[in-house]
């Protein structure tokens, strides 16, 4: 029972007190009598002890374990922004084999469990749920007898798409995990898209833009995906004062039009960081006279970090703090589908 207690504890520690009651009711493992005995006005620790005792009373270890794993997955769905998601895509379709797409969570779970049983220990467990049109999956790949949160891998997949968002996992399981997933869908490999962040919807949007899985190509045409709602940006308000006038109105209008052409009229996908590795020649010789150029590239790393970097870049330009037009490597992030770039100088042929 120690294992169940550990999983339950990790769930409770991640949940907010306000969400606790709703989630426990939604969970559906405890019957009405048991639910009425729970006092949600008490501390989380008290509720945890009560829930654990109910689970132990049922004396069905396997079912309890499965249900607790489901609760863990529900916690992750609820707090999806607490995990760092990295995007991966399927590559190289297996010749002769059929592509397998799943939209039914039960079927997906069965097939995934089969694959997991092939590659991992029999104690490995799979839980799947369907939420907001996406399949959410939790794989627990045990190492040792104790529960460790690092051994739980979470996965988000939109049915009929080629990409996955996967939370952090141990490097030791990477090969098996990738083989397991690519086999499941009838592909050879799973490769990283160098795209990571906390908002999975934005990540999928960027990934779909790149993979062309939706019917748009140009940035300005990137409107909305059926399952991902996008909000329109608020129109910029200019305060009118009879005796105060700006001489730059025409310039500002031109700038906002060109930004709209580049970024579209919708709010940008949310990315928390944008990293550029620069391996180009040093360009600032004008300012540093004594710089010795030995022909080697000047290596450095430039990071943009914040709650929403793409909106931030746009706002910088619209406030006039970034020079217009913006460089292409900032403008095209939307369609390149990655947030880790390497900038190199062109090689002369």
């Amino acid at each position, binding site marked *: 029972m120690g294992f169940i207690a550990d999983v339950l504890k990790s769930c409770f520690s991640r949940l907010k007190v306000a969400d606790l009651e709703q989630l426990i009711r939604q969970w559906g493992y405890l019957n009405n009598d048991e639910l009425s005995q729970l006092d949600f006005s008490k501390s989380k620790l008290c509720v945890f002890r009560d829930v654990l005792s109910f689970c132990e009373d049922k004396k069905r270890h396997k079912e309890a374990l499965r249900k607790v794993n489901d609760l863990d997955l529900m916690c992750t769905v609820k707090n999806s922004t607490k995990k760092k998601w990295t995007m991966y895509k399927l590559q190289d379709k297996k010749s002769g084999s059929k592509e397998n797409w799943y939209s039914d969570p039960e079927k997906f779970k069965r097939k995934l469990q089969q694959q997991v049983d092939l590659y991992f220990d029999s104690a490995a467990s799979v839980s799947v749920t369907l939420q907001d049109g996406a399949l959410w999956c939790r794989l627990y790949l045990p190492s040792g007898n104790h529960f460790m949160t690092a051994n739980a891998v979470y996965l988000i997949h939109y049915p009929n798409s080629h990409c996955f968002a996967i939370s952090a996992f141990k490097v030791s399981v990477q090969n098996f995990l990738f083989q397991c997933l690519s086999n499941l869908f009838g592909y050879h490999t799973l490769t990283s898209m160098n795209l990571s962040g906390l908002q999975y919807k934005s990540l999928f949007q960027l990934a779909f833009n790149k993979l062309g899985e939706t019917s748009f190509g140009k940035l300005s045409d990137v409107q909305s995906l059926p399952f991902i709602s996008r909000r329109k940006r608020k129109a910029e308000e200019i305060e009118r*004062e009879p*005796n*105060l006038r700006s*001489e730059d109105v025409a310039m500002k209008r031109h700038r906002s039009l060109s930004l709209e052409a580049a970024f579209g009229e919708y709010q940008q996908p949310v990315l928390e960081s944008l990293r550029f590795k620069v391996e180009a020649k040093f360009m600032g010789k004008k300012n540093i006279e004594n710089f010795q150029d030995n022909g080697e590239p000047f290596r450095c790393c430039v990071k943009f970090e914040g709650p929403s970097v793409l909106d931030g870049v746009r706002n910088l330009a619209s*406030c*006039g*703090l970034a020079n217009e037009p913006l460089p292409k490597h900032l403008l095209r992030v939307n369609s390149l589908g990655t947030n880790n770039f390497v900038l190199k100088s062109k090689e002369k042929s």
Partner: protein
Amino acid sequence: MSNSVLIPYNKVPQYQLATVLLVGSEGLGKHGFGKCLIKNTWFYLQVRTATTLPLPVTSDSSRPRIDYICFLIDLTSRDSLKTVEESLKHVDVRYFLGKCCFVALKVKNPEKRAIFIEQIAQLSQQYKSDVLYGSFETEAESAFLAEQILKSVEIAAGLQKNKSPMFLECCRFPVAGEESAE
């Protein structure tokens, strides 16, 4: 080039009206300060804001005569000084006879400064114009700056009887002849 130079006396003045032009890079709070100037004024005032000079030719006909120019410099940004220096090339020399001033902003935090005070002092000396130091962070600070500027604007626009900017200039600096006599 001659078209792009801002001239103080090429337009007929409007009755009892003064016009101030605020020049400074974006993000300094020109709009807010413009409103503060209008709020604190005791005469009829119009404020125009521009990021850089020359002013666009298209709106030239609708623009009244500019009586006074304030160049706003953010001490924490080198670009703002550069913008002002570039803009100064497009200003007629007669503006520097008491019809313009420099306003140095964000003076409170010396450790954040990117521009030395000496540079500003040198600029002021070069153009024989005043420098006001302050910030737009609080309303009181803005109002204090606005009051100082409005006093100069009133004289520059000819709204004060028997006073002109040239007269003030003469009172402030020793006349060349007197200097040599000493």
